[in-house]
């Protein structure tokens, strides 16, 4: 973002001016990294090796409990677990569902949050405050409840069907379809997106908008050439966090989605608990992680690009 204050904050927090390296600072920053290293980094590392067929050491217990565990049997590694997953007839359907749901949910979330953000920034007033407050409601609601509420709303005896029926429409219900997953994902992702994007738009000084107006630009041009570029970072943050979040979600597709094909979040859980095939579920987690990292790289790139633009680096 580009306001004077954020730049100032950035400069101070980056501490580029006192470039002296602090030992105390390093040790203060260590605990969360250690926790993450132990309980995220280590398991991911172990899981990675398990997915390649390393069944000994720390992986021993899970290899004994699980079914269909492919061991490397003296070879350097084996990709059999990956082959199991990819050759599974469900794989392609799951992959397509996961990617499409993430894509559509992200597009819709961006559309609504940018829309509401623009209304609030450019028009202000009671209506826009109401809209913002409304769209923040899901923030109060645990995901399990949201999923269940959406299920009852769109489900067989829900208001959605009741309304359609009273207008004489007899349509198939949308619960247990991909459409319901998208609706649920948008519903749960919207509050964070709105917070990020409204604060991004709010931090654009009036003068920058007025200068464009003074230069002869109409409202659409102002939005396109000034407001959206200046809110670029929050928009990228929303896009990455939403798509990554949706991609790895479980509760929403579990309650609202179809049984087959479904999203990887559900499939990972099924393989892990119901089918007791931990190695295959880990393989799927890595496939999702791969997609998520691609998106994460975009996020990091955008952050550095903006740092460069505002002269911070």
């Amino acid at each position, binding site marked *: 973002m*580009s306001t004077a204050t954020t730049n100032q904050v950035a400069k101070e927090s980056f501490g580029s001016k006192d470039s002296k390296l602090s030992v105390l600072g390093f040790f203060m920053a260590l605990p969360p990294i250690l926790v993450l290293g132990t309980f995220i980094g280590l398991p991911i590392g172990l899981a990675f090796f398990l997915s390649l067929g390393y069944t000994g050491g720390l992986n021993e217990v899970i290899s004994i409990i699980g079914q269909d565990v492919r061991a490397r049997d003296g070879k350097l590694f084996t990709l059999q677990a990956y082959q199991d997953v990819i050759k599974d007839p469900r794989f392609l359907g799951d992959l397509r569902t996961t990617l499409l749901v993430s894509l559509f949910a992200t597009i819709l979330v961006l559309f609504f949050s940018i829309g509401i953000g623009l209304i609030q920034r450019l028009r202000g007033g009671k209506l826009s405050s109401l809209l913002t407050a409304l769209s923040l409601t899901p923030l109060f609601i645990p995901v399990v409840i949201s999923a269940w509420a959406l299920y009852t709303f769109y489900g067989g005896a829900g208001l959605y069907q009741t309304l359609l029926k009273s207008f004489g429409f007899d349509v198939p219900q949308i619960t247990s379809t991909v459409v319901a997953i998208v609706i649920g994902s948008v519903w749960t992702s919207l509050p964070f997106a709105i917070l990020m994007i409204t604060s991004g738009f709010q931090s654009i000084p009036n*003068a920058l908008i007025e200068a464009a107006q*003074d*230069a002869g630009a109409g409202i659409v041009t102002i939005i396109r050439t000034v407001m959206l570029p*200046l809110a670029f970072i929050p928009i990228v943050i929303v896009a990455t966090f939403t798509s990554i979040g949706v991609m790895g979600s479980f509760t929403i597709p579990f309650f609202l989605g179809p049984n087959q094909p479904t999203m990887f979040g559900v499939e990972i859980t099924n393989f892990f608990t119901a089918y007791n095939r931990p190695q295959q579920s880990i393989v799927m987690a890595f496939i999702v992680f791969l997609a998520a990292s691609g998106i994460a790289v975009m996020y990091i790139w955008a952050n550095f690009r903006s740092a460069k*633009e505002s002269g911070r680096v």
Partner: protein
Amino acid sequence: MSQQNEIGLELKGLSKVLGGRVIIDNLDLQVKKGEMVSLLGPSGCGKTTTLRMIAGFLIPDNGTVTLAGKDVTTIGPEKRPSAMVFQNYALWPHMTVFKNVAYPLKVRKVNKAEIEKRVHDVLGVVNLMHHKDSRPAQISGGEQQRVALARALVQEPDILLLDEPLSNLDAKLRVKVREDIRDLQRRLGITTVIVTHDQDEALSISDRIAVMKEGKIEQFSTPEDIYNKPATEYVANFIGSLNRYEGSYSNGQISTGSDVVGVRPEDVTFDSKNSAGAVEATVSLVVPRGHFHEVYLKAQ
């Protein structure tokens, strides 16, 4: 030539209420074509509000704004033939200097070759060609100021509006930039309204000054008049320093009376106590101010 063509800007009966407070109260102002006029006053006097109504960012509750003979009172800023230089310059941080300046032409769909030419011309005028590919964050405050000026000038506006254009520059640069602006304005003959709270600035660059107080114009006249013949005590006090007497003035004498007499410090002379009209005083403080001294006197 009709009279109307000679008027660059006319405000008639302008009023504006903001947040329940009367900010501008029935204000009239006529600026001649090619003239440079300052709106001068303390903060809160309504000078910025007036400027924003001229630019179109605010719509007056009452009254009319006429620019170059055209009533623009309710027209949006994007359609007015005015261009503004903002107090903090309002340069877009995501665009280079060139793109900032080219923006007004681009949104008006001027063709590429002409944009190139006009932007180069105007960047030459403000002497910034070497920075055309820099970003606003990479250049100094003075340079940013010139970019903002270039962005306004490239539109070839009928009227140029400057909102406290020098307030973010250091003292030395301020004097230089204000002379540059004045020089440029004369050369281009562009009608200009400048908002300032700095009397030196107003006195040194304006053809005429409108001194404002509480949403009204107290006096609108040349710098010489404003300084030497202030219309009200408020104007006299706001511009320069003043020795204030209660009494009446006649024939170089101040005698008891109910009026107020103001004497500029530089008009005070030292003499023996027997001269006509003399006031007996002792020196209480002498402050050296470089090429002159400020002497504080206490009347006996």
